[in-house]
């Protein structure tokens, strides 16, 4: 019996959980709901682990495994299948998705306890996991698109989970509409692909594309541009990044799962999956890298000015995905996937830790109203510190160092890399250190400003995920060591069969160690500065804010470089204005005319509805007579 045949169980368990909860959720006790929601994901994770171990021991002959469940539809030979496709890339993704989801579900069982939408929450979360797994395992782009829209829907539903508050509904709509812009581009790209290849099967497209298109061909350019549009929307990159900070309106586990660990990295997955197209269009690849650098800088500066704990993390997420885009843009495919995995661990951890803090602070989000939590919440503090260290890429001891360092090195050393890209990434890394430790110091050091009402450390279900993810944030990086240290790179080796290795410039090997040293110094300096500004001399930060530059830039950064205001002025206001002046346009009169006509006709004809059966029959006979006359004499 081949273990791979059970691949369909990975999406099937979350789907079954969703169906159960959606149909019976209101009738079940909370404990049963928690069990169903968590166990279905846990089972999916176990199946994934089982399949993954089997995959590692005996890789399939072709390097991948394909399971066709059934044909979706068949129109003129265009027949997308409901088929699952497992290769190292998708294996890494489903591994991360199922395990992180499992821990977040476990966390949620305690975090969401007592909420009236308890069954709804778990139903949506299970549906999300199902959609995400479908997206990742999809064999063709249409099925991928189904999962893509599915996760978008779940994101919308969960951002607006507490729908009674109008602001949450607004945030949900904003996320939905902004990502929809990218999705529209994405599906137009799919149309182009169908027109070109008459199929949406990913492997067919990837194998045919180099034969159809030369390097730099216009077709490859447009398709990759449109797919990039989809990826940018979903992954909250420039210029569609504005939805993610607002998406923090949802419950914190949702932010951890959807808006940090999994869904927002779908764009990375899409580009990595379609890497052949980007290789065929160097311009587009450069655009990807530039978008990555710009995003990571913009988001980093924005994070520096935020006061809301979750918004800091949201901007940090945008910034970290910017790193992944940078890696994709310079052709360091495996580095991007590696950073995705590590990022999923530590960012989920940070969000969960933030959730615990917010729970302890009774829904207080402002970090300047917290403080001194180090002693009161030791587990949360230490795990949060581990996650922050990974985010700041503290050298050697954290996983984030290995992944981010690889990206920075590739940005400089890859054939597509350049000094400018590296410099952007480097500055971004420095800012990351600053805002990360600002967050840590302000939240956990200093004097305590608020009493802990409900201590989350008593909830085992919340602490276990924190500890597991904390450990993973520390040791997760050891599966891919820098070349300069040792030739121990099982991760990129594992991904080699589906993602090409990074092309390095000649004679750059020796730079790596120097770069690492530079990074290490930078990190230590950054931590010191933050310590100086927020622990040693808190007045320093205040003084900095009061300078002319600070007064100009602080609100600017706080509002995320005014992108919302920009879009509002450029797009929303004109549309609102147009619709206002055109409220009674002439087209309306046509439709109103139709309405009036209908009412008039109704008045005339309702007289014929007089209740007399024989009259109706007479009308029928009259009609038949007319029809026969027409047939016979016309």
């Amino acid at each position, binding site marked *: 019996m081949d273990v791979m045949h059970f691949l369909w169980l990975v999406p099937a368990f979350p789907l079954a959980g969703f169906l159960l909860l959606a149909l019976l959720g209101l009738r079940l006790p909370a404990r049963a709901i928690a069990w169903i929601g968590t166990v279905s994901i846990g089972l999916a994770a176990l199946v994934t682990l089982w399949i993954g171990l089997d995959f590692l021991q005996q890789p399939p002959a072709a390097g991948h495994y394909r399971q066709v469940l059934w044909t979706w539809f068949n129109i003129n030979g265009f027949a997308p299948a409901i088929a699952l496709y497992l290769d190292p890339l998708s294996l890494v993704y489903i591994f991360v998705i199922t395990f992180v989801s499992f821990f977040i579900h476990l966390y949620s069982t305690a975090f969401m306890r007592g909420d009236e939408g308890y069954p709804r929450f778990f139903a949506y979360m299970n549906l999300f996991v199902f959609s995400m797994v479908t997206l990742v395992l999809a064999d063709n782009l249409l099925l991928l698109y189904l999962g893509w829209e599915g996760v978008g829907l779940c994101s919308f539903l969960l951002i607006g989970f507490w729908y009674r508050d109008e602001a949450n509904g607004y945030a949900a709509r904003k996320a939905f509409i902004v990502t929809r812009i990218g999705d529209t581009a994405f599906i137009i790209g799919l149309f182009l692909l169908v027109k070109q290849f008459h199929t949406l099967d990913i492997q067919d497209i990837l194998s045919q594309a180099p034969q159809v298109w030369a390097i730099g061909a216009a077709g490859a350019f447009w398709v990759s541009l449109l797919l990039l549009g989809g990826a940018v929307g979903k992954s909250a990159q420039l210029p569609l990044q504005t939805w993610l900070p607002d998406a923090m309106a949802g419950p914190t586990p949702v932010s951890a799962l959807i808006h940090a660990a999994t869904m927002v990295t779908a764009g990375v997955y899409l580009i990595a999956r379609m890497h052949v197209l980007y290789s065929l269009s160097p311009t587009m690849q450069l655009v990807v890298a530039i978008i990555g650098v710009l995003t990571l800088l913009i988001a980093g500066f924005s994070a520096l000015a935020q006061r809301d704990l979750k918004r800091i993390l949201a901007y940090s997420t945008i910034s970290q995905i910017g790193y992944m885009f940078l890696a994709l843009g310079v052709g360091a495919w495996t580095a991007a996937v590696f950073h995705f995995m590590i990022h999923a661990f530590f960012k989920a951890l940070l969000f969960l830790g933030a959730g615990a803090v917010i729970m302890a602070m009774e829904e207080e989000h402002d970090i300047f109203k917290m403080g001194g939590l180090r002693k009161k919440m030791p587990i949360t503090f230490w795990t949060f510190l581990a996650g922050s260290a990974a985010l700041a890429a503290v050298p050697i001891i954290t996983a984030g160092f290995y992944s981010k360092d690889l990206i920075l090195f590739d940005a400089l050393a890859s054939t597509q890399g350049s000094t400018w890209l590296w410099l952007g990434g480097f500055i971004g890394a420095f800012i990351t250190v600053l805002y990360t430790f600002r967050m840590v110091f302000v939240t956990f050091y200093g004097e305590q400003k608020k009493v802990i009402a409900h201590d989350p450390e008593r909830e085992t279900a919340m602490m276990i995920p924190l500890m597991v993810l904390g450990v993973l944030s520390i040791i997760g990086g050891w599966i891919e060591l820098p070349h300069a240290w040792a030739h121990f790179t099982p991760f990129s080796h594992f991904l080699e069969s589906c993602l090409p290795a990074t092309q390095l410039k000649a004679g750059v090997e020796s730079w790596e160690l120097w770069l690492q040293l530079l990074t290490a110094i930078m990190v230590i300096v950054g931590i010191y500065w933050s310590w100086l500004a927020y622990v040693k001399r808190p007045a320093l930060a205040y003084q900095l804010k009061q300078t002319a530059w600070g007064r100009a830039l602080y609100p600017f950064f706080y509002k995320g470089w005014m992108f919302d205001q920009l879009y509002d002025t450029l797009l929303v206001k004109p549309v609102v204005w147009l619709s206002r002046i055109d409220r009674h346009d002439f087209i309306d009169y046509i439709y109103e005319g139709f309405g009036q006509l209908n009412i008039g006709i109704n008045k005339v004809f309702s007289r014929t509805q007089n209740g007399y059966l*024989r009259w109706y029959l007479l009308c029928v006979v009259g009609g038949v007579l007319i029809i026969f006359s027409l047939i016979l004499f016309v």
Partner: protein
Amino acid sequence: MISVPVHVQLLLASILFLIGLVGVLIRRNVIFMLMSVEIMLNAAGLVFIIGGAHWHQADGQAMVIFILAMAAAEVAVGLALILQVFHLHKTVDVDCLEELKDTQS
């Protein structure tokens, strides 16, 4: 068998059908209306038989069997309705059953 022209046979069917139609239209008694509907159904069946005989195929007869089944079910329900209507309104006059009219006119 017989050598009556097909259009004469069809004429018979249409006469029967039209008599039934007249019956539905001119009778006010619900029972008579139902009877007339049966006449019409029967005439339709006759057309099927004529067609089946003309092309010497059994399909026509199969259709008439369906018509029979349908007529049986229809009459059972229809007569039950008539009984119930008579029970409620003490009349079989179809013109008294005009509650379903549009009230605005």
